């Protein structure tokens, strides 16, 4: 079971108080985009074994969105951070690098 800390209200709770909403830091392609870009944005998701960035919402608590970094294999939580960013904060990258020296930040992060 995952234990997350909501950066908006500071509550630390287990995952049933939250809801996961899939991969984070997507680039949006809307009207005017090519069909390929739009299809890619709408349907294609990374499903990595290991470090993954996700969007979460504190549904039963403050109701706010945030981002989380975790390992999909070991279920280790590296940390949570604000939803008001399109890149991964440096302190989260440092935490992951400390635990996973072989890991490299994704492009654009």
């Amino acid at each position, binding site marked *: 079971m995952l234990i997350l800390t909501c950066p908006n*209200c500071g509550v630390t*709770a287990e995952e049933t108080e939250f809801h996961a909403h899939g991969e984070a830091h997507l680039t949006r392609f809307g009207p005017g985009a090519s069909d390929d870009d739009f299809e890619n944005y709408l349907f294609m998701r990374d499903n990595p074994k290991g470090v993954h960035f996700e969007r979460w919402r504190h549904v*039963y*608590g*403050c109701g706010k969105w945030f981002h989380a970094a975790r390992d999909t294999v070991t279920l280790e939580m590296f940390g949570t951070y604000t939803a008001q960013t399109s890149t991964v904060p440096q302190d989260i990258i440092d935490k992951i690098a400390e635990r996973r020296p072989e890991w490299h930040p994704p492009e654009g992060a």
Partner: protein
Amino acid sequence: MSEPISALNGAAYKDGIVEITALDPVGMITLRGDLGAGYLKKPLKKITGVDMPEVRGIKLNQDQGIAWMSPDELLVICPHADVATHLETLNNAIGSNHAMSVNVSDARAVFRLRGKHIREVLAKLAPVDTSPGAFEPGTIRRSRLAQVPAAFWMVDAETAQLVCFRSVAQYVFDLLKTAAQPGSEVNHYRR
């Protein structure tokens, strides 16, 4: 106007390890906006007599108070009969600023839990650390009770109050009765 009546009309459960009472209608106003703004702080202080609560805090002045619900949301608690005048005070203070206050009294049900086992009755139903030190009077916790959202806080060491949606009042009452049934003490928090 017709008499306001709570969802369970004062139902009570007195046979268990915690006494559970469905309270008569309580006035509640949801307020959303910039919580640091003076045009919210001032009228709130005037209405409730308490200051803006801290993050996850609840400040009570007898039957009035303010609870922190999220970074941009407050729950104002007051006597049911005062809601209309309080709303007017708030709306006058807000004016054209970007904030909103709404009367949610009739959308809610309120329960009071009383007894020395309130911490464990709540812990059986919510994924919340209710141990002494982690959960104390002065903080409100929004979470879930089994399958429905609820918020609860401690009034004193042996009294807790709980707010849920009116539509699930019977469900929550049944949950609480089950969690408080006679002989179900866990005594986990006994020190």
